[in-house]
C-alpha cells in the first residue's frame, strides 16, 4: 500500500506542478490554426470552423 501511495502521490504532484507551470483551466475552447490576417480589417468575415453555441 505504501508503494502504491508513493507512486500515486508522486504522479499527482508531478501533474500538479506541470499544470501549475503551464496553467490549467476548465474552460472549453477550440484551438484554431492559420487565422488569416485580414480579420483585423474585417472582423465580420471570421467564422469559427468549430463554433459551438454556447461555449460555457
Amino acid at each position, binding site marked *: *500500500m505504501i508503494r502504491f501511495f508513493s507512486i500515486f502521490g508522486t504522479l*499527482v504532484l508531478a501533474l500538479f506542478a506541470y499544470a*501549475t507551470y503551464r496553467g490549467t483551466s476548465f474552460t472549453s475552447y477550440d484551438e484554431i490554426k492559420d*487565422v488569416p490576417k485580414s*480579420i483585423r480589417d474585417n472582423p465580420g468575415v471570421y467564422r469559427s470552423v468549430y463554433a459551438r453555441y454556447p461555449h*460555457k
Partner: protein
Amino acid sequence: MDGDKPATPKVQTFKCLQCGSPISLRGLLQTTRVVCSRCGTVIDISDENMRIIGRFKERPTVKPAIPLGSRGAFPDGVFEAIGFMQRFITVEGVDYRWREYLLFNPFKGFRWLSEYNGHWSYIKTVMHQPRVLHIFGDGSITFKGSVFRHFQSANAKVEFVIGEFYWRVEAGQSCLVQDYVNPPQILSMERTSNEITWSLGEYVEPQEIATAFKLTTPLPARIGVGVNQPSPLVQQGESLKGLTALFLGIAISIQLISLAMSDNALVFQRNFLFNAAATEKSLVTDLFELSGRTSNVMVCTKADVNNNWLYVSMTLINDETGTAYDFGREIDYYFGSDSDGAWTEGSQTDEAILPAVPAGRYYLRIEPDGPASTRYLVSVYRDVPQWWPFLITTGLLLVLPLAVFWRRRSFEYQRWSESDHPMAKFGSGDDE
C-alpha cells in the same frame, strides 16, 4: 539428592468417586482439584485421601475446542491442556460467556488460553506490579513502561468446569476481574478474598492455535473485534502519515511558489458598447503583448446587465502565427425579491481562463449578442494564480490516508463497543 532419582510420577488414572468414570490426572500432582467430566463432581486431590468437595450442577454445554490431553508448542515451551472452564459476566442484564483452557508443563508451570467470540489470547501470570496512572481519569495503568487502558471491570462467575486446576474451583465461585488493554496485550487482575493475581495475555490468531495443537475441527469463527486484537494497518498507518505530510508539504510549496511567481499582469483593458441594433456586431481589439513563458491567460468580462444577459463569442488570435483560441461566454444577472427576501442569480462578471498560451503579440476578436444594448469591460491578464489545481491535488492525496484513518477508527469503535468506555459514534475518539 544428587545420587538417587526417585521414581518419576506418571500420569494417573483413577475412577471418579461419585460415578466411577475414568479420570486422568495430567498435572503431575501440581494440581489440587479435578472435576469429573461425566458427573461434574469436584474432587480434592491434594493428598492421598481424595475427597469430594462439591459438584457442578451445570453440565458443560460446549466441548472444549482443544481436547484435554492434547499438547501444543508455543514460543516458550510445549504445554498440555489439562483443564477447561466457561465463565461469564453479567452487564446490564446480558450474560457474556468466555472459555479458558489451563495449560501445563512440569518445568515451566501453567499457562492459560482464553477464547471469547472466537478471539484467543495466550496468558501467563505475572509478578511485576503495575502502577496506576491517573492521567486518563479512568484508572489506566502502566506496566513495564507501556500504558494499558482500562477496558472493563466486572464480577466473573464460573459456569462449568472439567479437568484439573491448581486452585479451589467451586460451583458458584465469583471473583472481581479487571481488564486493561494495550493491543495486542491484555493485562487482567483477578481478586478473591485473600489473593490478587495479575496476568498478561497476548492476542493469538486462531490459525496459530489450530496449528500448535494440530486441531482438525475448525475453531469458532471470530465475531467483531477482539478486546486486545491488534489494529490492522497500524504499521501502514504510521508510514502513511509521514508520506502524506511530505506530499502535502510539497503541494503547498508548489502552490506558494506559483503564487509568488505569477505575474498577474494586466495586459489589456477596454470598455465597449454593444449596440443591439447594429448590423455588424463583431470587433477586433488593439494588439497587446503576452510575455514570459507559456502560461495562462484570463479574459475577464464585466457587463452592465440587470435582469438581462449578454453573450460574447471571443477569439484570442496570435498576430504572428495565426493560431487562435475560440470560446464563448454567457454573462447573465438577475435579481428580485420574494417572500424569502431579496435574491440574485448569476453575475455581472465572467472570468475565462485559457491554459498554456505561448508568448507573442495577440488581439481579441469579440462578437457580442444579446437582447439589449449593453456596456461591457474586457480585461486581459497574463499568468494568473489558480486555486483549483491545488485543491484537487490535496483532495486526491488525502483519499487514501482518510480511508485508512476511517477504517482504523471504525475498528477501534468496534473494539470498545463492549467495554466500560464505549467510543462516541462521531467526534473525537481515541486511537489505539
